[in-house]
């Protein structure tokens, strides 16, 4: 149970702050849920009940809103959320292959999150960065003009980052100067 777990005390204190600011107005339910998800990472039933209680909105209505909007998740997410943009501009530039490639490399089939809770792979509708298509966001970082080939490198970069090593930012790629990884000759 979330509430009884003493490690969550700080999180609930933050949530109460959000509720203090927006919770009196039932019209701000979406804002409160966004705040709650930012704090806890996801919105389990227990949290929905807590918010329902504090805002005096039936839990069925809270659940109805949570399940309606794509941004809300009722399951915990990995440390890194990989969001593959599947908007049209990205799609025609091969975003589906990139999405598949992430799933392949992380051995994800029906589930979205790896067992070690490191990566969650999702797809999103247009994030409006069509100039960089195809685009993937990993938490706050935006990776544009990606190819399916670069996926494994990207995954390794974040795995290394978790292991305490910083990755180097290569910056924007100038056309014609892109350095592919040298082929490994037999």
């Amino acid at each position, binding site marked *: 149970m979330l509430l009884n777990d003493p490690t969550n005390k700080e999180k609930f204190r933050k949530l109460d702050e959000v509720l203090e600011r927006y919770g009196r*107005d*039932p*019209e*701000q*339910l*979406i*804002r409160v*849920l*966004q705040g709650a998800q930012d704090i806890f990472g996801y919105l389990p039933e227990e949290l929905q009940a807590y918010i329902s209680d504090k805002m005096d909105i039936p839990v069925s*209505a809270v659940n*109805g*809103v949570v399940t*309606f*909007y*794509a*941004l*809300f998740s009722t399951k915990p997410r990995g440390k890194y959320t990989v969001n593959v943009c*599947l*908007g*049209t*501009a990205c*799609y*025609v*530039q091969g975003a589906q*292959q990139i999405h*598949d*490639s992430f799933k*392949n490399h992380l051995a994800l089939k029906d589930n979205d999150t790896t067992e070690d809770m490191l990566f969650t792979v999702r797809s*999103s*509708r*247009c*994030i*409006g*960065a*069509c*100039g*960089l*298509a195809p*685009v993937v966001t990993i938490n706050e970082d*935006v990776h*544009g003009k990606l190819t*399916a*080939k670069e*996926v494994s490198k990207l995954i390794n970069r974040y795995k290394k980052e978790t292991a305490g090593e910083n990755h180097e*930012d290569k*910056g*924007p*790629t*100038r*056309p014609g100067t892109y350095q*592919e*990884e*040298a*082929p*490994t*000759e*037999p």
Partner: protein
Amino acid sequence: MRIKGLQDLELIKKKHLPNLNARLGNNQTAGYQVLCCTGTGCSSGGSEKVIKTLNNQIKQHDLQNKVTVYKTGCFGFCKMGPILLVHPGQIFYCLVHEKDAEEIVSEHFSKGNIVERLLYKEPIENKIYPQLKDIPFFQAQQRIALRNCGLIDPEEIEEYIANDGYFALQNVLHNLTPPGVIEIMAQSGLRGRGGGGFPVGRKWSFTAQAEDSPKYVVCNADEGDPGAFMDRSILEGDPHSVLEAMTIAGYSTGASQGVIYVRAEYPIAIKRLELAIKQAHQMGLLGENIFDSDFSFSIELRLGAGAFVCGEETALLKSAMGQRGEPRPRPPFPAVCGFRNKPTLINNVETYANVPIILRKGAAWYASLGTEKSKGTKVFSIAGKINNTGLIEVPMGTTLRTIIYDIGGGIPGGKKFKAVQTGGPSGGVIPAQLLDTTIDYESLSKIGSMMGSGGLIVMDETDCMVDIAKFYLGFSQDESCGKCTPCRVGTKRMLEIMERITQGKGEMADLDELEELARDIQETSLCGLGQHAPNPVLSTLHYFRDEYLAHVQDKRCPAGVCQELTDFVVNPEKCIACGICAKACATQAIIGEKKKNYYIDRQKCSKCGVCQTRCPKDAIFKAAMGGDNASAYQPGNNHTTYPTP
């Protein structure tokens, strides 16, 4: 400081205009002015880091008095971001990395030498264009809604005022009556830029005439159409224009409360809007007794949470009230029963952005632009298979050819243009033979597409139109809220048929069924999402029927896209026989010997595509099954000629 009238505005303008003029290149004595885009495109490319490094370097070179760096909104040329524009000289640096900042400072600002390698190079003729005004992408454009984007610092209200911001609001509140304002909007011919194209003057007068109170003014900033990002750029680059217009709309319709419903996916836009609202309150341009008149108006934000259907106005209103964003039947229209069941005016971001300048320059000026029924300019985002991805603004009546070839720079890689999709999942495709169609509301709907919010996705010969139609239908199906049966079940059935066709299991009867279902869904769905969901299928069936026939009758995908109808093949000319693909293959379908050659056994291949992503030489490609390309690479064939993919 609280602004009370015209004099106060003039004072601020006078103080900040020289600054703005220097940035426009009109003031030669002011040293170097550097404009750096901080919109989503350039920020993603690292423009904030570039600005930081620039400022550090400027300090190190002791050039603080000579060089000033400004954060601006979007220039529109997102493909080339991060972008720096340097005055004097209007020097256009693109794809700037923080490592390049030092060179720009030490060479350009210290010694006056332009850093040539960072200039824009046109991809087809390889010509270098040092100055923004000469770059083809920016010619043929006319920026009205985007007038401040890429010019002013969106986080400084004084800069907006210096470029004549809030002068229209002052004039409206002191010199015009509400019906007078509505009359000007009607005469200007401005139509809603969110897709429907409803005349703005009429819409405002409906809300003004509604008898209930209080009334509300809502801004639809839920830009969900994939491939469209003009509203985001306006909110990021010029948030005050939307606030000013909403306040004017409030005065004209009798509302004192405004709501902006914005996507949570646009964090920079939200941040800038919040800041802009705060600044406007501090200056008395929002809140009680604006410009010392008896008119009061305030604006609050509501955040979306990722539901495409919330772009539909009745769904948006539900969502803004914290509920599930499900649409309801109209009438009653929001003008009568909207936000909190009170009369509500809803326009989208781009529509509002046009309002202040129309009131400043006059209805006749605006009506002189564009075509007979579609006045003014329209912002388009061009993306997909095109050289110059980005945001452009052109007068209504410009042809698609001008947009795609003159401004967009044509198709990359020398490929052939196939179609352009307008109107997103609600629109249709336009084939090559209709490229000379002029863009306005009427001509687009006549050829089975629609203006939509202005997203243009360009497709080339390697795109399969059946697959594209399936993609859009899948989008609408996924985003269907489920309230009405035609949309919930109908799009699902259509999608199943499309999936059958792309898997090579389609029959001729499927095509008729698709059309029949499409008509039913169009006629009986509750809201715009369902009514327009079949459009991409109908328009591709109309213009690219041969591709459907190839999938259904010949069981092949001519463009080599649909997985089940294509083969992965090894191009022996590129293959270095390293064996990486064979190791990666889960089904042992890649057969061969190191340093000799490899080929893919069609029967064993599961078409997962892993080999293609692993190949270091790009020697593995997809080819249409049954086509000449694929069979040429099977063993036993005479490899004298290799058709290129």
